[in-house]
């Protein structure tokens, strides 16, 4: 049963084919078996999971269960969980136990979900390979010498290796879509403002957005139904009504207008990757869609602008980790300055410090206009590019990543090489748009992801487009061998 999709588990629970306790136990057993090697979880909450599973089964026997009651999931370790450590993959928060739940966690708890644990991630979500985690790298279940992608590498690997039915994740520059692509699963980053950021440890506030890692688009719809929607505690959360994301999954795709950005099919994309993506697009044509080339002329500047804006916001967001009120504090500080500097130098890893430095520099006197302000203007150009494109097409498709998963330790020499991993995903965050990555084939037995980008708040359409593909193909059903 643990190979089943989240939707199948939901139906099985509803039909009483299995109990939540049974499925929860099965996942916990599998985690016990696999996690030591995969390192997908930082914390496994066995006792909590069993208690929640029992409560879910009780609820079901009382007839008050919903679609999500009793489904075992995992949370990326940056969603605060009351009474359970939230480390954000950092030594800085290794001892941090929040006395509150993130809104996302609260909503899953209220829906009766079972929490299996907290998944590994790049430290403070800064990374594209899950190698910057204080808790060590996560392995890609398809080939354990490879990275699963990042920063939501733990959530991706956990879903791919069937350690949970689904997982929450976050995406600031591609942190859901890229690991979904590397790990052969479905990952959706909703529109900025669709899901509350409250209780989610911040990396870059104007870019961070919570989403899901699942086997299928249908699963993602079920999770979004729980997560999405207005939260009065988050000023940047949209008041636009949510919808039942499962309702339009089966809508026919006749007449769907697909745009292919020429910039995403140019140099830097391998021939076999391009072939794989074009085959997937061909599948859509069979389903009645029309395809045309479009232009995103400023997309080549997205990584540059992103590496100003995200580090700038991060440099301020991470100032609160000062050793005063919670989290790590260095031993025996001689004075205030020493406490600040050693706490932060010892508590943060190299990549986090690097980004704090870059962000501090970009905002510092004399550089603000050349860097921060310039990046905001580029951001406007990028958003405008998408707006023009969406006057001609309904969705934009292309590769999620320029290549398949790479070897652990192979790209650590130059941070810029790693930054360019997100070359196709970053613009979507800058523009605030929803994007999804779905399995679209394999190259040398490694999964390939197709990225689909939609208009603001078009999550239902994205899921519909993804679901119809998954009805016609079975790439998403492929699972890695142990």
């Amino acid at each position, binding site marked *: 049963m643990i190979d089943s999709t989240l939707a199948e588990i939901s139906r099985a629970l509803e039909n009483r084919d299995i109990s939540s306790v049974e499925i929860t136990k099965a996942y916990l057993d599998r985690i016990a078996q696999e996690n030591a090697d995969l390192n997908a979880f930082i914390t496994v909450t066995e006792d909590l999971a069993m208690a929640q599973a029992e409560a879910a089964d009780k609820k079901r026997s009382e007839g008050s269960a919903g679609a999500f009651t009793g489904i075992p999931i995992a949370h990326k370790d*940056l*969603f*605060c969980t009351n009474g359970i450590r*939230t480390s*954000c993959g950092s030594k800085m*928060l290794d001892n*941090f136990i*929040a*006395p*509150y739940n*993130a809104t996302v966690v609260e909503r899953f708890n209220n829906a009766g979900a079972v929490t299996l644990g907290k998944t590994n991630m790049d430290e403070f979500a800064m990374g594209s390979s899950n190698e910057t985690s204080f808790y060590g790298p996560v392995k890609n279940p398809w080939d354990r010498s490879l990275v699963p992608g990042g920063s939501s590498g733990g959530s991706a690997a956990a879903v791919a290796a069937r350690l949970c039915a689904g997982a929450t994740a976050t995406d600031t520059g591609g942190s859901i879509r890229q690991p979904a692509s590397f790990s052969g699963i479905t990952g959706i980053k909703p529109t900025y403002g669709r899901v509350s*950021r*409250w*209780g*989610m*440890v*911040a990396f*870059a*506030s*104007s870019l961070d957005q919570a989403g899901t890692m699942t086997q299928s688009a249908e699963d993602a719809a079920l999770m979004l139904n729980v997560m999405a929607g207005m939260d*009065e*505690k*988050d*000023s*940047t959360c949209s008041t636009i009504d949510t919808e039942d994301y499962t309702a339009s999954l089966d809508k026919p795709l006749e007449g769907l207008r697909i745009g292919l950005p020429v910039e995403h099919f140019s140099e830097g994309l391998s021939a076999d990757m391009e072939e794989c993506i074009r085959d997937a697009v061909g599948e859509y044509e069979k389903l009645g869609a029309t395809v045309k080339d479009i232009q995103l002329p400023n997309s080549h500047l997205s990584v540059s602008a992103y590496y100003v804006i995200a580090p*700038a*916001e991060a*440099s*301020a967001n*991470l*100032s*609160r980790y*000062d050793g*005063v*009120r*919670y989290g790590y504090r260095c031993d025996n500080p001689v004075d*205030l300055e020493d406490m*600040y500097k050693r706490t932060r130098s010892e508590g943060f890893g190299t990549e986090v410090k690097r980004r704090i430095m870059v962000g*501090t520099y970009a*905002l*510092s*006197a004399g550089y*603000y206009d050349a860097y*921060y302000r310039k990046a905001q203007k580029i951001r406007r150009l990028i958003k405008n590019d998408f707006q023009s494109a969406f006057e001609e097409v309904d969705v934009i498709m292309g590769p999620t990543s320029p290549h398949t998963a790479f070897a652990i330790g192979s790209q650590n020499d130059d941070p810029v090489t790693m930054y360019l991993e997100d070359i196709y995903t970053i613009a979507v965050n800058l523009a605030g748009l929803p994007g999804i990555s779905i399995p679209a084939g394999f190259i040398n037995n490694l999964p390939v992801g197709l990225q689909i980008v939609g208009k603001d708040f078009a999550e239902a359409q994205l899921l519909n487009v993804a679901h119809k593909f998954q009805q016609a193909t079975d790439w998403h059903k492929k699972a890695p061998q142990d």
Partner: protein
Amino acid sequence: MEWETVIGLEVHVQLSTASKLFSGTSTEFGAEPNTQANIYDLAMPGTLPVLNSEALKMAVKFGLAIDAEIGKTSVFDRKNYFYPDLPKGYQTSQLDFPTVGKGSLVINMEDGTQKTIGVTRAHMEEDAGKSLHEDFHGKSGIDLNRAGTPLLEIVSEPDLRSAKEAVAYLKKLHSIVCYLGISDGDMSQGSMRCDANVSIRPKGSTELGMRTEIKNINSFRFVEKAINIEVERQIDLIEDGGTVTQETRLYDSEKNETRSMRSKEVANDYRYFPEPDLLPVVIDDSFIEAVRKTLPELPDAKRQRFQEQYGLSEYDAMVLSADLDTANYFEEVAAACDDAKLSANWVMGDLQAYLNKEELPITQSMISAEALAGIISRIKDNTISSKIAKTVFESMLAGEGDADSIIESKGLKQVTDTGAIETMVDEVIANNPTQVQQYKDGKEQVIGFFVGQVMKASQGKANPGQVNQMLKEKLSQ
């Protein structure tokens, strides 16, 4: 050389909202340390700000009161610096788009002159917590109760030319925020705090000299002293051939000196940028008009009305309107006794003297407006003289009851019985033949002597007007 002083003030006013600027924690003063600091105030990971509507209304209200441009789109920014009382490592403030733009207010000097002082801007921001320097095994304690309390930082143009003007400006601001009900303005509790930018230049020069910023001035009196001492220091420095360095200085009220703040020596680079956890604050005309409708009568308007409605002098009207509670008290007294002039004299005179002596605000006066009006009414209807009224006032302070019962029990009722007064007048005339002759010889000022004698004989209770008139009649016979 003759020097001119140039002063600009930055005044932080704590807005009297029930909850903090971005969280639902109480802002009440005086709670146990850190009992009013929730997870947002402590900058716990993942917590987010939502703007307090009342704080915004208060800022707009202030803007309207000083005729300022209201920022229809204001933007919060992060001001980055590390300090243990600043939990997020940045202060959420407003840089380029403050809620209140250019405005002005009129200050009134003691000599009756007026001057218009420009206000550059007033922006909303969060207050910081407090570092307590009592010794905890050589460490400092941090109390974050105050962290996140809404502040309005009001920045003046460098239009002030003396410490006295600075005080007058501060008093006017104090008066306005109290009138508006947006702050209690209590400087001793830090509800209103003042930093002064001070420089000097040769008289007649139009260029600004190098300025210093004096921090931590927490009373009207200290504002004047701190500025004067700093101006003196700068003059001495320059006249001895030195130069003023731009720096932050702390006023030490015990030593009455300013000294350089070492901790702020390193030039700050605050790295302001728009706060991404908040969106632009957009207010429309209807919002502004709704706030405008809540504007009370302001000090200047009240002063003018006091002059027109009550016939008070400009000075009296100014003194009585400076403080809203005093103005309200005065109006209550005047309405109850129907004599504005006498009411003004009593409120500014005996009552104020008593309040000053006891260091009480007028709202805690032992003598209510109604009670004071009771005394004044008895003066008006000739039951007591002004002099006896002071006795009644003292008895009232001693808690001996209202005016009528004091007059009754102490037998202070003025003698208006013509027969009784005539007896006393006759007696005084008979006993002082020398003075009678002087009067008859044309030395009319001797009348004062006779009045005094009669009043003395009546133990002050005779009606002085009546006595005067009767004496004149009798002495002319």
